[in-house]
């Protein structure tokens, strides 16, 4: 029995070894494939994890795929009309009026009218519990003034409402079916969903009547598999576009090249701003929150200016990614402070002044009994965040700050987040992320929100003003202003604006110039401009 087990283990190992060696040296089949106007892509599991129905939050990226929304996000992250020709906001910021484009029809042939918009918005509003991506709770009514005009009324001024109109794809009133739309939604978009095999593949075909230019590629198949299997399949020439983790970026696949695409996704580490104490949550539970080391603003500032972000990115991500100091500039409202890092001397002086000195000669500073040391948590299913934190820990050690990196589940991280650092990833069009991460309201009340316990009355007021502002540009101005306050206090240590890596077949042109900066979630965002792709 025992012997048998040992032998079987050995066989497994041996087979794995063989398969590892066998990958190299396969011939390139890509060129031999017959289908000249179709491609096969692997963009992660996103299509197969949740419903594709826009009503249930499917495809709320801000750009169109199968369905179009009223507005869309452009390459420079500003909004433009998609199904809407134009829009206007009333002076009291309560009424949004959209004038719709004419002559658009759904994939099933029915005409697109204002009634479809009303139907979509009302269905989402009624089933808000099923859609966590598009929040219409502020909307009190939506009316079709005529076939081409839609009027939406809010209960209070709420500037992020515009983001919602870009994220909610419109479904047809006549053909909507809550069941079948989970897999094969019908829309007005450039792509028609034609086949969906659960956990296996999604096939889309070009919409020959698309109002904004017919795609040149006629059929795209999205397959579902492991990252590693996808890489192997790419090597054997079966895939045209393959998402890969940054540690694969230095690999070579004949007939393919690596594309590193711009994102708005930043990795930051929360640094608790409160001294350790017991606090009570709104539902009466007592939790320990705060951290005596990171509560010292000097420690946070020293990390911010003293670490070498370039080197950290080199070590953790093979150099894939751009140093980040705040939310990215490719967002309309992003306003990262201008910081020069690698200033180790300045950082050390800052720590010395604040009383952090290495008295026992172990390379780690102390202040009295307190060691300058804290923990940073990373999710165990994301190796790249662990590598980032480990690389940071190596760098911070040079400043005399000890960071011990832990890997665990999100459940555990959520518990530890109030007393320790956590490597977060944030990238989205909506500036509401600022409210989520920095508003004192969200501390202890919402998950993944303001875990450092940051509180600043001036910032809270500015956030409120931004949310309630009646004009989009005014709101953007406030959002930009409030970030200057955060830059003084560093509740989050920004490290890197990641880049999404894909292997792309040399026969496919993914039109890099019209790519929209990718939001959080490596994988699907590469298809944001798929209608512009072409085959060589």
């Amino acid at each position, binding site marked *: 029995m*025992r*012997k048998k*087990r*040992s032998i079987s*283990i*050995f066989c497994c*190992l041996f087979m*794995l*070894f063989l*398969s*590892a*060696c066998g*990958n*190299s040296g396969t011939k390139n089949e890509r060129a031999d494939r017959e289908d000249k106007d179709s491609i096969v892509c692997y963009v992660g599991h996103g299509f197969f994890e949740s419903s594709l129905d826009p009503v249930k939050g499917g495809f709320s990226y801000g750009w169109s795929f199968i369905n179009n929304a009223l507005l869309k996000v452009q390459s420079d992250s500003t909004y433009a009309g998609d199904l809407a020709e134009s829009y206007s906001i009333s002076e009291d910021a309560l009424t949004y009026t959209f004038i719709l484009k004419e002559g658009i029809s759904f994939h099933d042939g029915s005409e697109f009218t204002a009634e479809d918009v009303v139907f979509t918005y009302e269905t989402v509003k009624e089933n808000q519990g099923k859609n966590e991506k598009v929040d219409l709770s502020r909307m009190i009514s939506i009316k079709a003034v005529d076939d081409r005009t839609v009027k939406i009324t809010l209960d209070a001024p709420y500037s992020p409402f515009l983001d919602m109109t870009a994220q909610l794809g419109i479904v047809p009133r006549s053909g909507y079916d809550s069941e079948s739309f989970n897999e094969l939604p019908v829309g007005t978009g450039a792509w028609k969903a034609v086949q969906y095999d659960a956990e296996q593949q999604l096939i889309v075909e070009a919409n020959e009547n698309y109002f904004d230019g017919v795609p040149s590629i006629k059929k795209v198949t999205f397959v579902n598999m492991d*990252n*590693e*299997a996808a*890489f*192997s399949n790419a090597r054997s020439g079966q895939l045209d576009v393959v998402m890969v*983790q940054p*540690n*694969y970026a230095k*690999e070579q696949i004949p007939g393919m090249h690596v594309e590193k695409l711009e994102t708005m996704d930043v990795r930051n580490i929360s640094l608790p701003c409160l001294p350790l104490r017991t606090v009570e949550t709104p539902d009466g539970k007592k939790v320990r929150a705060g951290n005596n080391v990171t509560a010292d603003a000097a420690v946070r500032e020293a990390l911010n200016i003293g670490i070498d972000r370039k080197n950290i990115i*080199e*070590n953790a991500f093979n150099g894939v990614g751009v140093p980040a100091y705040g939310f990215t500039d490719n967002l309309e409202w992003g306003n990262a402070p201008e910081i020069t890092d690698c200033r180790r001397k300045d950082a050390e002086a800052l720590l010395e002044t604040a009383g952090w000195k290495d008295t026992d000669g172990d390379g780690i500073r102390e202040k009295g009994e307190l060691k300058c040391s804290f923990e940073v948590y990373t999710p*165990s299913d994301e*190796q790249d965040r*662990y*590598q980032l934190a*480990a*690389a940071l820990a*190596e760098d911070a050690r040079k400043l005399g700050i000890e960071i*011990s*990196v*832990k*890997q*665990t589940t999100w459940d*555990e991280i959520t518990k530890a987040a109030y007393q320790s650092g956590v490597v977060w990833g944030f990238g989205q069009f909506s500036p509401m992320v600022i409210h989520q991460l920095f508003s004192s309201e969200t501390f202890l009340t919402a998950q993944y929100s303001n875990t450092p316990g940051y509180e600043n009355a001036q910032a809270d007021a500015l956030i409120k003003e931004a949310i309630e502002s009646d004009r989009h540009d005014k709101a953007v101005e406030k959002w930009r202003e409030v970030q200057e306050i955060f830059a003084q206090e560093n509740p989050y240590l920004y490290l890197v604006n990641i880049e999404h890596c894909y292997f792309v077949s040399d026969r496919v042109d993914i039109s890099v110039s019209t790519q929209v900066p990718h939001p959080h979630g490596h994988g699907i965002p590469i298809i944001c401009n798929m209608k512009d792709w072409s085959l060589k």
Partner: protein
Amino acid sequence: MKKCNTRTRVMIYIGFASVYLLGIFFWGLFMPESGYDVNYADKLLPPGSGHLFGTDFMGRDMLMRSVKGISVSLLTAALAAGISSVIALAFGVTAAVFGGRLDSFVNWCVDLFMGIPHLVLLILISFMLGRGAKGVTAAVAFTHWPELTRVVRAEVISVRSSQYVRAAYKMGKSRFSVAWGHVIPHVLPVYLVGVILLFPHAVMHEASITFLGFGLPAEEPAIGVILSESMKYIAMGKWWLMLFPGLMLLLAVMLFDIIGENLKRLWNPDSGNE
């Protein structure tokens, strides 16, 4: 070459195996953390003179990590073997000596534990105790006793009903002196071999639940962690990350098996003559 008898050969096997296992165990136990320090300059080096087993994606020496990992596994296994064997001895002896309801209760417990797939039970216990070193050690320690309990119980029952034990009672020996003079010497070899043979199970189980993500945290140099990390690099052709740690685990398990089997031959001369 001079032909050596079975006893000598067995001793040589046992000697070599023990030296190797103890060596790895203490090497890992007293290894400073600097032994497998991060060194980004040496990322993913193939096996060579500087790094016998190569390096991983953070430039850590794989030989050192593997040794440390096996050592951690051995430590867990030692605890597991210790605790499980004490439970097994207590349960087995009481069941056999007292019989009746107590016996059925022990049997019921054994059946209960053996009825649940072992890996599932391990995951449940480890998960319940919050994973980490504590969870995995407790899980491995408290689930390896049923087989040994059965063996001990059967042995005690067979000794108890044998002629010489009955004779001893007739001669007026006390229960204690019978237990000490007759039962324990008879059960001990089987028991010790059972304990040794617990080790490979425990080592494998610790590695498996860690591999599946329910055991030691990923920042520890545990063999399960090393193997699950290496899975991500197989497609890139970094075979050494998996091969050497895997072989070391295999070797450790097989050596325990060899020690156990050979001790059986040594302590149970009948089987030596088979």
